[in-house]
């Protein structure tokens, strides 16, 4: 079984457009939406919910009634999570559940409690299984939840003997993005030809290399700024990175998005042709 992740240095580069369309072209696969902060893939697939699991991401401290306001906890908390007062309180958004305050409190007034930080799901769109999740707003970075989504996708792929797991990765370069690419066979990086796109691309390439994954690049909306596109291509050549393809700026992509459909459903769109070629190349590689 092969795992392929589609990522980008930041959101909105067309990552979900591409993964939604690739999902439509792939056969014998399972999809995993690892963008748990802003999951969008299920909007494209109108899936039917099969399973729901709760995700307990960590613990949070709670201060009980025996607090004497001595302030010892505040001195040790390195996350500014303790709010002083007549009885001290914890800011649950800031607390990382590190346990330092629990150990230090002379009154034993603090306890760590498990906290639920999201849900993850298994759904089905036609014959295609999709694992996805939703992190509760304001919860801590989502690496652990992404790991659960990927585990679930892998399990289903094994059960059903599917050949591929296609991952819509989390944007950025932090823990969410890292969790989306660790251990995958191939990473498709979506870039856009903008001044910031180049900057974001370099950061995600560095991240991908840090995890020693094989990868290639897709340039989305390449004709919006051909000078920048050339710059990206030159940079890739210099770095020995394969450019898997270029997708043109195509109003059809947007129209499909409004209808919540993958753009490749529209055979006449120029973007569709480009995505099909990228898919071909991807199949040769993996």
């Amino acid at each position: 079984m092969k795992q392929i992740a589609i990522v980008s240095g930041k959101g909105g580069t067309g990552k979900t457009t591409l993964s939604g369309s690739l999902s439509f072209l792939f056969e014998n696969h399972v999809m995993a939406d690892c963008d748990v902060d802003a999951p969008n893939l299920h909007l494209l697939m109108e899936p039917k919910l099969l399973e729901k699991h709760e995700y307990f991401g960590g613990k949070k401290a709670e201060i009980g009634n025996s607090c004497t306001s001595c302030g010892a906890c505040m001195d040790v908390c390195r996350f500014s999570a303790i709010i002083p007062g007549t009885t001290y309180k914890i800011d649950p958004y800031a607390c990382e559940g590190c346990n330092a305050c629990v150990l230090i409190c002379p009154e034993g007034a603090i306890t760590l409690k498990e906290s639920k930080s999201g849900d993850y799901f298994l759904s089905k769109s036609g014959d295609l299984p999709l694992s996805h999740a939703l992190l509760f707003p304001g919860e801590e970075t989502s690496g652990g939840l992404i790991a659960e989504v990927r585990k679930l996708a892998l399990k289903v792929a094994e059960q059903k003997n599917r050949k591929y797991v296609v991952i819509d990765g989390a944007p950025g370069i932090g823990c969410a993005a890292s969790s989306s690419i660790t251990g995958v066979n191939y990473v498709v990086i979506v870039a856009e030809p903008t001044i910031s796109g180049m900057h974001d691309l370099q950061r995600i390439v560095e991240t991908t290399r840090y995890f020693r994954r094989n990868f290639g690049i897709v340039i989305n909306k390449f004709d919006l700024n051909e000078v920048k596109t050339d710059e990206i291509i030159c940079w890739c050549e210099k770095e020995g990175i394969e450019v898997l393809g270029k997708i043109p700026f195509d109003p059809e992509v947007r129209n499909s998005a409004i209808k919540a459909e993958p753009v490749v459903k529209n055979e006449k769109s120029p973007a569709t042709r480009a995505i099909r070629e990228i898919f071909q190349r991807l199949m040769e590689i993996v």
Partner: protein
Amino acid sequence: MKIAVVSGKGGTGKTTVATNLAWVLSQKGPVQLLDADVEEPNSHLFFHVKYTEEIDVEILLPRVDKEKCLLCGKCAKACQFGAISIFNTGVLIFDNLCHGCGTCSIACPTKAIYEISKQIGVVKIGQIDEKLTFGMGLLNIGEPSGVRVIRELKKFIDNSRTVIIDAPPGTSCPVVETLRGMDYAIMVTEATPFGLHDLKLAASVVKEMNIPMGIVINRASEDYKEIEEFAFSNDIPILEKIPFDRDIATSYSKGSLFVEEKKEWFERFERLYEKIAGVIV
């Protein structure tokens, strides 16, 4: 006044709004633009920034003094992040799992643990021109969380100026850290079902934090009215609609501000600000 520019996901035009708004307001009075999107800061690309200060953001990592260590395992037991393992040869610390919380030091009965600092990012402070000062945070590659970099950046908030903060995308911890203490949130979204979905998530965070908000619809389209319906039924004002325009996309791609190229938009951003100022006082 402190305004955060937020979006449920990246690429909706958050940076476009933050940079253009900061520029427009700085033509009238002192403004500070801060980029808290520490995983992918982009705002600086639209300006020539003269940096005056660069501050390392560090966390403390534990190290074990073998002489004093009894291999008792109390540190590993106390660590909530699985960052310590005990072997008969010694204590092993996994730096990339460590949150730098110091709990293991508290737990160690023999004070065998000391700490060393490790840089996880930087905060850069500078000036674009007299009216517009600038700051940004940058998280190092491979680091899990940008919250501390954001906290460090926010120490440089200049209350004598109108502050515009380009927030990180999404709805998790770093966004909450950015929003803390803000007077207003501009929610930037695009007119698609994805935009709406992510907007709802982001709006729930802002609402819970009791921060007044308004919506800017980017790449607005007559074909998709659902954002406006959502805004109406939740009593959130629509501050502006920026149409789907290839010229605007091209100016962004070149790293220029479209308010400079399209005068009409300069005034529209001024009006956008007046709408916000009217709410806060």
